[in-house]
């Protein structure tokens, strides 16, 4: 399920997420966080220049995949797998929760 919402994230010294807050609910990571790198469709983004040697950061989005459990109460809580996009090192910015997958949620949605 695509979420694309900013979240606040607490990380380990390695940079891996350990806890994050999404829609008021704090989630605790329970799996070994797996780093991966997603990509962007740079050609459909406006105002972008792609001159040789100047576009190294344009294609990739560093992500972490974690399994996490809600630690606090809230309106919507889910127990599942999350992809968190790391803010670019250079510019800072927010973490984004890109996708959330939950078997329970899937069952509810597609039952």
């Amino acid at each position, binding site marked *: 399920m695509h979420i694309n919402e900013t979240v606040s994230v607490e990380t380990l010294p390695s940079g891996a997420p350990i806890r994050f807050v999404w829609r008021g609910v704090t989630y605790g990571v329970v799996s070994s966080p797996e*780093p*991966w*790198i*997603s*990509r962007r469709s740079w*050609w459909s983004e406006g105002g972008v220049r792609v001159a040789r040697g100047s576009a190294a950061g344009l*294609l*990739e989005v560093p992500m972490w995949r974690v399994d996490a459990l809600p630690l606090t109460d809230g309106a919507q809580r889910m127990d599942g797998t999350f992809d968190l996009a790391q803010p670019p090192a250079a510019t800072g910015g927010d973490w984004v929760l890109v996708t959330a997958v939950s078997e329970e949620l899937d069952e509810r949605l597609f039952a």
Partner: protein
Amino acid sequence: MTTFTHLNVASAFSAHHGTARPEALVAAQAAFGARAAGIADRDGLYGAVRHIRACLAQGIAPIVGVSLAVLEKDGRAAGRITVLAHGHTDGSGWATLARSISAAHAPRGKRAVGLLRDRIGHLLRGADGATVTVLLGHDSDVGQAVATGDLPRARVCLSWWKGILPDSLAVEVVCHYTEPGEPASLRHAAQMLELAEAQDVTAVLGNAVRYLEPDDALTGDVLDAASHLSALGAFTPQPNGQAWLKTPDDMHALARRIVQFSTLPASTAPRLIASTEHVGERCTLDPDEDLGWRRAKIPENEVIGLTGDPNAVLWSTAEAGISERFPYADTAELTRVRTRMRDELVTINEFGFASYFLTVADVTSMMRGMGIRNQARGSGAGSLVNYLLHISNVDPLEHDLLFERFLGNKRETLPDIDIDVESARRHEIYRAIFERYGSTRVSLMAMQNTYRARGAARDAGAALGLTEDQITFVAKNIWRFNARDFRDALGRKPELREFAELLHTDDKLDMLVDLTERLDRLPRHVSMHPCGVILGNNDLYNLTPVQPSGMGLPMSQFDKDDIDDVGLLKLDVLGVRMQSSIAYTVSEIRRLHGSRVALAGNLPLDAPYINPDGHLDVDSIPHDDEATYESIRTAHTLGMFQIESPGQRELIGKMQPTEYNDLIADISLFRPGPMKGNMVAPFLDAKHGFTMPNYLHSRFRYFLGDSYGVVIYHEHILRMLHECMGVSLAEADELRRSMEKNTDSIETNFRTRTAANKDSVTGKRLFTDADIERIWLVLKGFGSFGFCKAHGAAFALPTYQSAWLKAHYPAEFLAGILTHDPGMYPRRLLLAEVRRMGIPILALDVNKSDGCYRVERQAPQAPNQAVDGTLGIRLSLRDVQGINEKELQRILLGQPFDSLTDFFERAKPSRSLLQRLALVGALDDIAATSIFGDGTAAGEPPPTRGDVIARVRQLTAANRRVHFPENQLDFTVDDRHLIPRGNAEFTSEERVHAELSILNMDATAHVLESYRPLLDELGVTPANELLGLWNKTEVLVAGIRVATQTPPMKSGKRVVFISLDDGTGCSDSTFFEEAQEATGPVLFGTRLMVIRGRTRRTGERGISIEASNAWDLRELWTQFGSPRRK
């Protein structure tokens, strides 16, 4: 310093995949401190030789492999593998690699390139143990099974491979940090490693590299789009941009991370690195041992029918050539010939090249045996031995050419001998070479086609999803600049102005510019080289992988830059259309005139180069024919080899050549260097007697006489260095070569040695300080522009021969160039030249036209009368748009036809072909006359073109095909009463329109005539009246564009030459920067133009126009027409 060996690297020679040249990849790895560097391109060894060369230059060890698909029996692809050759195996690892690649390309229907699974054991497993190592990476069948989570299947797959290659198999662990679970994700890499450990298979670490730096990943996206033939976003793109050449530190860290993520102990990481290095060592090639690096491998002696010592055979063959080549030589000349021959033979034999020369001689003698014209090109023409062996037709003594320029002292690889042949018979020659030397020793050479600006812009545009119109708009205005300078060009080139404006508002176009720059020079696809044939020994196919070529014969994956290093013999057998045109002209002359050839050509009746049966030996014509030079001097050089371009016409007009040396000089001067170096003006001034020739030094007079003292040729420079420094000519050529790279590198040496050069008798210095200063300045200024005179002399031969034929047999010659189309101009301009020369153009006629342009005698030849004026040229059926070979043959075999119906029945043309033939009038004649005589009723006019078309419509109407009973096939019918009458005759505009669209030529009248009212109103000057105008007259010219050139200029600024043909001749206009500004997109984008400018005299018979502006004629016509219609 940590080290790491990359085993799996795809270079840019993995077309539409890799983004970096092998040289750049190797340099980067050398900078990392790598011990060795690997390359494994997709489907071939296209970049392998460059890779090895780069490794040798960087002092690191080369590793070579290939990435191949595996195919199941049903043709389904089952992943890819990397095959690496083992080194230090006396070439057997390389041979296995090469033969496996050839097998992967072997044609079996339309199957994709790949190794058939049931052949893999046979191909990869040597009889005496393994000679290659196979890497199973993330995209192998094992990797795919792991990715789908099917571990049992992964184990089965891996076991299969282990059964085939028990001791030379490795699992390649690749981590690109793709989405968890996907191939090359961290998880996947860990599982691959676990699987290898569990099955006791070696594991190596790799990065499946396809680009040099992270930034190249975007280029990779665009290449993927080109390979998918679809726009970005319309296919699944690469998962991310991790496939760059990571540093040893990166790779070591990656190993640790993969192990950390796995269930294996931490000690596995260093072991993974160690086993990678171990496999790397096993695959380290020794170029000498494994490839016979730079050692000549030519056909075995017995193959070229050689018994005994090749040196002795070469000597006696050359000796035998003396009496053939110099039948009338006196003793003094024979002594000169023998001395030169001996000197050359000594050098050739010292190099051990005797069998090479004999091989080339064998090939050319085979061509002569087939009756095919051939002519050596290049520095090889400087060799007397080549002349004696009939490899070359240029006598080096006649033109004072030097052998040392061709073969010096220090050459270690085989010299190039390039041979021009009739283009129309080139494939015939290739097949004969395969037959003669055995298919194990011959292959065609490959050519790497790289992205140039237009292609790059097209593919970048398609990747961005631009419309075809947008892409065409951009591509049309790209004109001769490097794609990598696209953005820079936008600010400078007026024709790109409109486009540059659009960039401000259109992001996609802005991106297009960047992407076009990225694609520049990347290999695009591999194709058959237009002229290269590779000869080797019986082991050729152990050295080079081959793949099917367009013409069916096997093509090597090596290109021209690879051949020297692998020690193969490359024959450049270049198909030259002019050679075909000459051969055709000679055959037409003989067919038409038979025993009267000399008379018809206005030649001496006892000319020794004409056989009694009418065969003209063009290679023996004298080189001092005044009629030929006179015809060249008119500057009506259309059809004459190399001197027909607008720039050349201007130079010829100024030079007014009077002898063969002038032609050599003309060809040598018409190049960027001499034009920029202003060598033309001093030559012309001295030739026309305005100045005295300046020979620089009295000792130079004997060799600078051929160019009025101007230093033009390499041969001049060799002799100057030889005279000044007292070095041998061979040493002088080495100095010349180093000067080409850096003129100043020899300055000190030159000054010291020349100053020390003293007369052996008087002991006085031969060159004063002032001499040295003066000579050095000339060497410095002209030294790097020089041209090989042997090359020029060889080039001038077809120039002279074509001019000679045009002067003596214009109709036959023009029929030859119309048939073989050798030059730079469209056929319609050649036809305009026919018209200009007053030679009748005979209409296309299904009964009279052939598959080529035939010369026809229009009236019976009167006794004792030359045939001038009665010869016409009949248009060829082959140029009818859409005619296929079978239809053409049916027409030619069926001629003559009695009637339209007869033609329809027996020639069986397609409906559209029949309509086209009717439209261009090819059926007019059979519709009007008949074998029954002129059957039309008295006074009844012949059917009009409209009547013929109406009849064709009847014939081709559905289900109306009339079938005659079998037994009446021979029964001829007169069908003229079936032709509907009363349809309108074609106007001349309609005729020309039909001719242009169907024949691409305006045969009955010039296309410009349709615009006559506008041209008259504008007051346009016809091209043939320009010469009569005063200098600097303001004029308008119009016409159809026949040539656009942007030749190099002395100033370095761009100048555009546009030639227009208006039916009376060609006008040549020059656009300087301001005019280019004014003209904008019309400059390159339009075909019919009107140009305004001022006349500029360029010589006695030369006039051109300095343009100020130009317009699209059709646009003017629309504007002209619209107010009238109101």
